[in-house]
């Protein structure tokens, strides 16, 4: 298995674990009696912002640890640059990722139109963000294994 394939799998697993752990933590913070409109906006706003910060920091740390383990186990250095194949796969991953997020965004807007609670809209938005991230990693893994 090549560096890029291993990296895609690591990214996929870490995305799922970070999101699951964060959601479990935030679920315990959600008040049982529910939230008012203002508190609701504040709760979901902080949910998204903190998730982004936690996710970025965790991915950087995991990427550094991955590179160290890769060097130790294989004796090879990780590629220092992205060539035309990497860029092409990156573009395809972004395309699929954005497509899924836009679908989620439209679904979230649809939930507002159909008078669903605010929570439903935010849950759909956050879930589509997570799924688009997962889709990007799966697309990369697929193209690195099967070709472009």
């Amino acid at each position, binding site marked *: 298995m090549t*560096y890029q394939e291993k990296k895609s799998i690591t990214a996929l697993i870490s995305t799922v674990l970070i999101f699951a752990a964060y959601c479990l933590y935030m679920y315990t913070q959600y008040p049982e009696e529910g939230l008012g409109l203002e508190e609701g906006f504040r709760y979901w706003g902080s949910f998204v912002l903190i998730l982004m910060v936690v996710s970025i920091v965790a991915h950087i740390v995991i990427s550094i640890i991955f590179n160290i383990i890769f060097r130790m186990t294989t004796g090879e250095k990780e*590629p220092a640059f992205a*060539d*035309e194949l*990497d860029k092409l796969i990156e573009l395809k991953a972004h395309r699929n990722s954005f497509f899924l997020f836009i679908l989620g965004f439209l679904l979230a807007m649809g939930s507002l139109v159909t008078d669903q609670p605010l929570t439903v809209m935010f849950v759909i938005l956050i879930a589509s963000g997570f799924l688009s991230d997962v889709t990007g990693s799966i697309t990369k893994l*697929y193209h690195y294994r*099967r*070709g*472009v």
Partner: protein
Amino acid sequence: MGKNLVGNHIRKLRFNHNEMTQQQLADKVGVTRQTIVALEKGNYSPSLELAFRIAHAFGLPLEEVFFYGDDTSH
């Protein structure tokens, strides 16, 4: 994902050039080893620029390294 119609003789040419490794060829043409692996497996059709760089690395014209469809000349 279907196989690409652009084939190549890179693997054979590497061995004919002092058993050049994939990494050595990758360094010569400015790509990662992964891309050379994908090319040899037929999983990727290179850009015209990369195809020319690979042909130059072997000192051969483009058509002696790459072919379209089934190759009957080798």
